[in-house]
């Protein structure tokens, strides 16, 4: 009698492999082994963006999208709020935060406050700088238009869950001459940021940004594991394609176990 559900054995094996890789690389990093992660240009540009805002005497604006769900992209965006708040507070830059999702409003406020505290500038925390815009996509977009035109920030940082609104925000940022950094999980939104922003990141790059920002050993171990797992997936695809072309379906059978 089978213990495992048919068709899910390969999935379980892959998940176990991923969990093993994460724990292995995390323990390696914790024991002092230095692992190098490619720098994401969009991540490096955050310092530059905040610096520009300080020079121009303008605030910086950050947002993480509008989707009202706690998904990985929104969580990365929330982490980014804390990080950017810390960088902005260190440089004495005012930060405007545009919040779309209702459920994460308190988390965004808390991350903003903690960022200021970690920078040693708790007095820079200003609840009036947090603008709630709703999670309805185009109402959020209308609100973003309003904030961009009202504040004309020196820098726009948008990392999180965006979609069709990405091109509209991007165009407005470009039109107003704002230094823009955009990152979206969805590849079409990332492509629109690529068209319109000074720096962009899309897909898994935003998670790599989150990891390199947090400097957490598990996060970095996770990035290395993800890359390895992606390589394994690509290898399976290539081998599978070759085998399928030669008429063998052994790999397909294995994957469907």
């Amino acid at each position, binding site marked *: 009698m089978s213990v495992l559900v048919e068709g899910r054995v390969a999935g379980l094996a892959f998940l176990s492999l991923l969990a093993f890789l994460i724990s292995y690389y995390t323990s390696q990093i914790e024991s002092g082994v230095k692992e190098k992660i490619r720098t994401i240009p969009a991540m490096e540009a955050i310092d530059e963006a905040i610096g520009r805002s300080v020079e121009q005497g303008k605030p910086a604006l950050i947002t993480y999208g509008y989707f009202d*769900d706690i998904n990985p992209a929104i969580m990365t965006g929330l982490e980014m709020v804390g990080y950017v708040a810390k960088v902005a507070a260190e440089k004495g830059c005012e930060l405007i935060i545009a919040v779309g999702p209702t459920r994460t409003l308190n988390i965004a406020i808390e991350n903003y406050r903690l960022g200021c505290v970690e920078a040693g500038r708790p007095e820079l925390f200003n609840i009036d700088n947090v603008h709630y815009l709703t999670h309805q996509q*185009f109402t959020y977009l209308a609100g973003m238009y309003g904030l961009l035109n009202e504040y004309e920030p020196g820098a726009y940082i948008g990392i999180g869950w965006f979609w069709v609104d990405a091109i509209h925000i991007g165009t407005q940022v470009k039109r107003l001459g704002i230094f823009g950094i955009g990152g979206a999980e969805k590849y*079409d939104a990332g492509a629109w940021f690529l068209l319109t922003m000074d720096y962009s990141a899309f897909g898994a790059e935003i998670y790599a940004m989150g990891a390199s920002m947090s400097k957490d050993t598990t996060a970095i171990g996770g990035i290395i594991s993800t890359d390895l797992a992606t390589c394994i997936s690509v290898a399976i695809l290539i081998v599978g394609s070759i085998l399928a072309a030669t008429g063998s379906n052994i790999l397909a059978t294995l994957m469907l176990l």
Partner: protein
Amino acid sequence: MSLSDKLLNIQEKYIYIVLAVLLIFPLLKPLGLPITIEDITYTYYEGIEALPSDTLILAPHDASTGTEMEIGLSSHIVIKHLFRKGFDIVFCTICASGPPIFFETLKAEGLYEQFMDDYGTKYVYLDFIAGEEAGAASIAASIRVATGGKDYFGNDLDSLPLMQGVDSGGDFDVVVATDEHSLLSVMWMNQVAIPYDIPIYCNPLAAVGSTFWPYIDAGQMTAMLIGAKGAAGYEILMNDPGPAAANMDAQTFVHVYLLILVLGANVLLGIKKYGGVE
């Protein structure tokens, strides 16, 4: 400022005025421009037509106020088709604005009386289940647990003839996502169609349709009606041209207008850069 600079940096109000005229004119005076039907629309229509009359359909109707203007066109005609074929249908939604839009759709298509007359024997409405994908997962696992054993009207599900022996996603033959807000049909695909290996039909926004092609290619999604054009094609296949087909003239005009704008802007840029002409 030269003419080309003025055109390249034209104020948006002039673009909007022309756009408004191009939208309003064909709606007031339809030109009857030809409409092409995509292959995937044929696949959708023929798939529904081929289903046996005793098919039990799970029909999530995840309507949203914002996207209803586009998706409502296809949801109206699909629901009409499903009713016309006489299938047994269990409707539900994981979108909070789903219920009022659903009943409005039925009334607009003159199906509300039929729905209420055959309620319980041919049609059931499960009401809104919170949690989006979690809601879909809950429905797929156990409808009675997800809904608390009651339907939208407060009836006990066990008292409804259609719901006898129907409790999980595997008890359905087909999923027809009759309305689609954002990516909710992907959630139904993940939670019901793929685990229980049943076909799923959906009608995404035109902006979303391109991201669903890998699912169609892999066979995970059977067919889709993409945006208003898909709805118009479906209306023609149903021999029931309606609002979607009527909108196609305006859609044609806007498509041509935007192509002229973008290509014209790039031609001007090219002339400025390489032609040395102001």
